[in-house]
């Protein structure tokens, strides 16, 4: 789990963050002023500062927040000037947007706020629909609203070109003020809450931000998304009554507390309407006590009442946002917050410490116990001389809070609650009631500039006055004056004027009491809190804090203890003295007790060991079905002491007992094939690989299957003498189920002319779950999960089912992957009821997969395999190609065809798989492709160039990747004019990439010294036209060769690539039915092919090896078929082992048909 932050504000207004990996509250030094409240998301944190402005702190990321501004330059041809800016009066503006309706000259573009900067100057875009244009990017047409082409024709009367300029958000990791909106100044914000990032599929950055003002109004920030993190404007949300506090969950839950003590719940929130439509009212948990606070998560609502009791709302989900009833929980809290994964944080009313709710899981959302987060704050020592005044002001907070909660039905006292965070403390210093404060302050307290606001009770009427005073203040100055005014207020304690207006007398006396007690016992308080041992927290936000009930947090012990307990955890234990001692003594023991006695007889003789069991077998003959079989694995010690074995499958054939056997040393791979009916796995031998018909076996339970798999794979590895981690030369592959396999290549794998047939390659499984894996020959291996998370190989092995013996003990981590499952809902229109889900029998199933051939319903649809669990509800997917209407429906005349009278509706749901493997996450940027320089094994390259594409299409270069630090340390963003989707770096550091529009790019002047090229500017990309109008989708660059695959499955070879002309000259077609290609450091070419003929069926996703590749014949001759189908990805970029030189090689052997079966000369990878 990546490191993330918990944010909190203490009673002095200082902002702190606590890392999930850390053990200390770190003060946000950047904060120039005190904050009242913060609300965090994973990528940013919003806050209300004491100047009543909203501030945004975006966490620095290697991926910049950029925005592409574009405008079009339009010209018309006339006989005199040729093309010129002289347009007809009826024409569009000379500078316009793409439609031509908006006038957009270059200098009209302004930066939205001071937090932005321009990345460069305007430049013309020379890429047109995936193809390069000449002559400055002009595209031509007959007249303006028409189709443009890149070629000038005789009838081209108008032309236009697109100008681009990027602006970049620069205010990373600092609190940047959101420019205030004039209309709302008189009413400063008192509460703020962000969330809503789960309601759409947009890239992270889209947020719903809600705010409440002192007067109880509610505001929604429009237009926050990943390239506009500040949002555009505040829009008021109509309310049934005045609100004090609001909480917005990551999904569609939004609750707010009314001044009267009830709750309102927002309804009608959806992807299209993140603001929601209406309010529903929910009563306070107890009839006599008003609610004061609410916190919502994905599926939970927690609340507080005025008596500080904690309440949990039963039955809350997105269909029923109001829930069904309250449950009283233990604990007395003054503030609650629900973070990610519905984890709950609270501030206790007793000691003002932050508490974490332990044991909150999706099945037990209410958790088990409160546990105090007890970690020190950085700068504790430096602040330990905390001044009396700040402590007093802390005391004031207490009174303020107490008072706020003891006041019933008084509008103004709630203002007080809002303001006790210091919103309007300035009244105290500035308002005419307390003129002494100015007199007192400077002399006494000028040396304590960092002290904060104390609660003061402003009159609503004075607020506008304050706000005006405050709004144009410099942050620094504010701080100073806060400190100055701090103690003064206390001295002039009860303010008769205000109290009269404010509250009934009973409350008054309580007030006075508590306040004066603070004043009286200042010294006592100082003793109590003087050393800052007691955290005085005011606000906490877990919206950016990614923890769950399994997270290992070091928050709960004191520093010393946790350091000790750290020594138990994996890494430090490796180096501990006690461990060394044990290893040394054990080897001494062996020497002492055994070395001189090896000739003694062993007490227990070794023998054949047989493990038996019953399983089901997918029988070889038709009709194929599962039949019960007895299964036995006989293991024995081979002649050279290595273990070997035979496995037997005993079955009945027409009452006759028969058996099938396989030698363990011939098994090439064991593939788990989990589906929801069977716990099955497949066993391949070279013969079975040729037939595309493995031995398929099913165990009764998943556990049993894993036991067998672990045993069999251990046995296979033993018989082949393979142990320990994969070598640097290893080939890696991934199946369509995300299982990862690794193969140790033999030196003769790339031999000429007789390479090892690739159906004889032995693959063993490595734990974890990936979609893509890439490696190079110095042993750097990266992977990308289905959820686009980047992973780096830790050098371990095993994991997954082979826990225990066949795994390394360290270097294994938990890996989580998330995958979306899609189903279509089809509805047929009938004249009576319109569109319903009552279909005709000839139709597709009402719930089906994409083909319409298999029935899938929301209820019977299971996660991809039993290892997966659902993590979300079904939701409509809007991203379907061809467009959908607002509710996600597509229309067609009849299935299949153009959608008209039948509607079709794509639903998706996320599922999650947790496994273990030798992989460590590289947060936070999600990737879709990665490539590593395939260096030769002997090369002394220290820093290894590694390129990647983020899931938004940004090109990234990883800095600091070496064999010692394969994860590198940070990303360097490389500018492009459009999003990319595939990238590959060759042995000579040449970089090729494919853009989203299917065109290829070559990046010049990339040297190992400056991996990202000079200045990382976008003009370094040379646009290479795609082959024959095909849209390319993937590229792989070997030592010199460049291969691409297009969307129609064609494999292309780049012809004419030479050192002096690295772009090459043309594309040459090699093969069709290709899904993926991997070119290695020897220029070897491996692919994943589709439609490969087997004995019983065609298979998709087969690993194939190009034969006959040599310098004189770089395209090779034919394909050799290996493991498959069901494979999705392969990389051979680790194998830089030169094959052994055969004497026959010296004489140019005629490319005769090679004696390897299943090969085809030339052309298609197809078998049919």
């Amino acid at each position, binding site marked *: 789990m990546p490191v993330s932050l918990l944010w909190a504000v203490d009673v002095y207004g200082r902002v702190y963050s606590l890392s999930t990996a850390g053990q200390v509250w770190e003060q946000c030094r950047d904060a120039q002023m005190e904050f009242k409240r913060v609300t965090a998301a994973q990528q940013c944190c919003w806050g209300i500062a004491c100047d009543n402005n909203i501030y945004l702190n975006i966490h620095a990321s290697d991926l910049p927040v950029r925005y592409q501004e574009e405008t079009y330059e339009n010209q018309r041809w006339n006989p005199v000037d040729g093309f010129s800016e002289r347009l007809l009066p009826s024409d569009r503006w000379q500078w316009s947007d793409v439609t031509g309706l908006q006038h957009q000259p270059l200098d009209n573009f302004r930066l939205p706020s001071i937090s932005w900067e321009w990345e460069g100057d305007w430049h013309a875009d020379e890429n047109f629909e995936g193809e390069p244009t000449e002559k400055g990017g002009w595209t031509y047409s007959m007249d303006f609203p028409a189709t443009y082409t890149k070629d000038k024709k005789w009838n081209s009367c108008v032309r236009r070109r697109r100008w681009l300029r990027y602006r970049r958000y620069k205010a990373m990791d600092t609190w940047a003020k959101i420019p205030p909106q004039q209309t709302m100044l008189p009413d400063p914000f008192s509460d703020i809450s962000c969330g809503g990032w789960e309601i759409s599929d947009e890239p992270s950055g889209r947020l719903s931000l809600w705010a409440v003002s002192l007067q109880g109004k509610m505001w929604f920030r429009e237009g926050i998304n990943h390239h506009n993190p500040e949002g555009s404007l505040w829009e008021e949300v109509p309310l049934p009554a005045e609100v004090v506090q609001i909480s917005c969950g990551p999904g569609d839950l939004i609750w707010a507390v009314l001044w009267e003590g009830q709750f309102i719940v927002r309804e009608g929130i959806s992807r299209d309407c993140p603001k929601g439509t209406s309010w529903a009212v929910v009563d306070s948990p107890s009839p006599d006590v008003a609610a004061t606070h609410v916190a919502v998560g994905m599926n939970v609502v927690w609340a507080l009442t005025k008596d500080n009791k904690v309440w949990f709302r039963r039955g809350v989900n997105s269909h029923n946002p109001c829930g069904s009833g309250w449950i009283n929980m233990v604990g007395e809290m003054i503030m609650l917050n629900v973070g990610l994964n519905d984890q709950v944080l609270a501030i206790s009313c007793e000691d003002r410490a932050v508490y974490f709710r332990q044991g909150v899981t999706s099945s037990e959302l209410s958790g088990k116990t409160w546990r105090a987060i007890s970690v020190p704050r950085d700068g504790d020592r430096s602040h330990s001389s905390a001044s009396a005044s700040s402590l007093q002001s802390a005391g004031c907070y207490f009174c303020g809070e107490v008072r706020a909660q003891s006041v019933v039905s008084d509008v103004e006292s709630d203002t007080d609650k809002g303001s006790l965070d210091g919103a309007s403390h300035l009244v105290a210093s500035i308002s005419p009631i307390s003129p002494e404060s100015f007199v007192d302050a400077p002399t006494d307290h000028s040396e304590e500039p960092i002290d904060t606001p104390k609660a003061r009770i402003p009159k609503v009427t004075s607020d506008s006055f304050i706000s005006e005073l405050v709004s144009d203040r410099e942050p620094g100055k504010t701080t100073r004056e806060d400190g100055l005014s701090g103690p003064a207020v206390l001295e002039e304690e009860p303010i008769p004027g205000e109290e009269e207006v404010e509250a009934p007398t009973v409350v008054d006396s309580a007030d006075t009491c508590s306040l004066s007690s603070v004043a009286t016992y200042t010294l006592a308080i100082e003793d109590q809190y003087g050393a800052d041992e007691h955290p005085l927290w005011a606000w906490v936000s877990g919206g950016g804090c990614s923890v769950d009930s399994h997270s290992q947090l070091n928050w709960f012990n004191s520093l010393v203890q946790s350091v000790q307990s750290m020594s138990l955890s994996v890494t430090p234990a490796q180096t501990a003295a006690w461990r060394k001692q044990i290893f040394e003594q054990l080897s001494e023991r062996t020497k002492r*007790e055994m070395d001189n006695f090896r000739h003694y007889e062993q007490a227990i003789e070794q023998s054949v060991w047989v493990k038996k069991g019953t399983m089901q077998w997918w029988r070889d003959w038709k009709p194929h079905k599962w039949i019960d079989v007895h299964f036995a694995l006989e293991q024995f010690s081979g002649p050279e002491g290595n273990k070997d074995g035979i496995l037997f499958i005993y079955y009945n054939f027409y009452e006759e007992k028969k058996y099938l056997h396989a030698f363990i040393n011939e098994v090439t791979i064991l593939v788990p094939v989990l589906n929801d009916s069977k716990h099955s796995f497949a066993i391949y031998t070279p013969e079975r690989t040729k037939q595309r018909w493995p031995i398929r076996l099913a165990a009764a339970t998943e556990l049993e299957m894993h036991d067998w798999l672990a045993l069999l794979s251990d046995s296979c590895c033993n018989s082949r003498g393979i142990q320990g981690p994969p070598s640097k030369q290893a080939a890696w592959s991934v199946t369509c189920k995300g299982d990862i396999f690794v193969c140790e290549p033999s030196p003769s794998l790339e031999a000429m002319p007789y390479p090892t047939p690739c159906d004889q390659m032995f693959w063993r499984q490595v734990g974890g779950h990936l979609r893509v894996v890439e490696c190079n020959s110095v042993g750097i291996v990266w992977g990308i999960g289905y959820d686009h998370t980047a992973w780096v190989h830790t050098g371990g092995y095993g994991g997954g089912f082979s826990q225990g013996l066949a795994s390394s003990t360290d270097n294994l981590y938990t890996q989580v992957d998330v995958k979306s499952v899609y189903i279509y809902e089809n509805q047929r229109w009938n004249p009576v009821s319109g569109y319903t889900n009552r279909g005709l029998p000839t139709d597709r199933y009402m719930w089906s997969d994409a083909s319409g051939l298999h029935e899938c319903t929301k209820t019977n649809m299971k996660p991809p395999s039993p290892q997966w669990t659902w993590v979300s509800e079904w939701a409509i997917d809007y991203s379907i190609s061809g467009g959908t209407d607002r509710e996600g429906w597509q229309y067609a005349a009849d299935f299949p065809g153009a959608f008209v009278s039948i509607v079709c509706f794509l639903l998706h749901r996320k599922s999650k798989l947790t496994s273990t493997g030798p992989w460590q996450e590289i947060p936070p940027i999600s990737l879709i492709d990665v490539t590593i320089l395939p260096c030769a094994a002997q090369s002394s390259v220290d820093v290894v160039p590694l390129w990647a594409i983020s899931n938004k299409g940004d090109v990234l270069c990883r800095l600091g990747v070496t064999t010692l630090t394969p994860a590198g340390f940070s990303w360097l963003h490389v500018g492009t004019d459009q999003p990319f989707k595939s990238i590959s770096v060759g042995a000579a550091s040449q970089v090729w990439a494919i853009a989203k529009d299917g065109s290829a790019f070559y990046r010049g002047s990339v040297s190992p010294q400056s991996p990202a090229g000079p200045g990382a500017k976008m003009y370094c990309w040379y646009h290479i036209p795609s082959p024959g109008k095909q849209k390319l989708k993937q590229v792989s660059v070997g030592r010199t060769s460049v291969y691409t695959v297009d969307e129609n499955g064609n494999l292309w070879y780049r012809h004419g690539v030479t050192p002096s002309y690295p772009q090459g000259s043309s594309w040459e077609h090699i093969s069709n039915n290709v899904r993926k290609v991997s070119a290695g450091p020897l220029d070897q070419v491996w692919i994943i092919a589709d439609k490969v003929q087997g004995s019983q069926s065609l298979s998709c996703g087969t690993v194939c090896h190009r034969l006959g590749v040599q310098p004189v014949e770089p395209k090779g001759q034919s394909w050799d078929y290996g493991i498959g189908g069901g494979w999705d990805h392969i990389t051979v970029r680790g194998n830089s082992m030169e094959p052994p030189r055969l004497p026959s090689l010296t004489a140019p052997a005629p490319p005769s048909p090679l004696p390897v079966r299943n090969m085809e000369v030339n052309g298609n990878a197809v078998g049919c």
Partner: protein
Amino acid sequence: MADDKDVLRDVWFGRIPACFTLNQDEVTEREAEPYYLLLPRVSYLTLVTDKVKKHFHKAMRAEDAEEMWFEYEGTPLKWHNPIGVLFDLHASNTVLPWSITVHFKNFPERELLHCPSNSVIEAHFMSGIKEADALKHKSQVVNDMQKKDHKQLWMGLQNDKFDQFWAINRKLMEYPTDEGGFRYIPFRIYQTTSDRPFIQKLFRPTSPEGTAHTLGDLLREMYPVALPTDGEPKRYQVVIQGIEPLPETPLQWLSEHLSHPDNFLHICVTPVPSD
């Protein structure tokens, strides 16, 4: 860097060379040669001495041979303790091979349990595993196992199959990551200086504050004299599997790696030899 799994192998494949000689008082038909054997430390004497029995039976008349038992320097060896424990406790400072006297008469009823067949050893071994799991996981793991898994544990020990044994035993060594260890550490402390068979109490792998308990912590509570005091020469050796781990070794790690197949951590405390 060596792997923790190597420790498991080293522990499993630990062997003690032994020389079995027939007691002089036994009635023999011809002279019985001593019998040399490598004994697995983790196994049980009566389980691995079939060959010894056969060897000496050859020299005796059948009616003279009663139940076989073993003795070292006058101490009858309790077969129900693992061989390694017997060695560490009674003979750790002896010259190797370990010289064991074989008896076929005068079975010391008061000191030894009878062992008529391997099924008795199996029952004893399995009860050890169950007791250990009761301490470690409230018996949940062992109860979730099938009969054949139990059998596999036993067969693994009986046939000296490390893989076979650990394929099952690893489940007994698991614990929830958030708890930092087993519920209680199954351990037994043996001593030669007392008549008590062993010390066994409830002891958690971590303190209430969450720090890991060490071997030193355990001894401090169970057997404080075993720990060296400052400024005095060491009086006791604390031996586990023939080695002396440092007192700061985490107990949980020891339990996972140096336990015998019965899942107990057998700790021998013996006086330091005076020479």
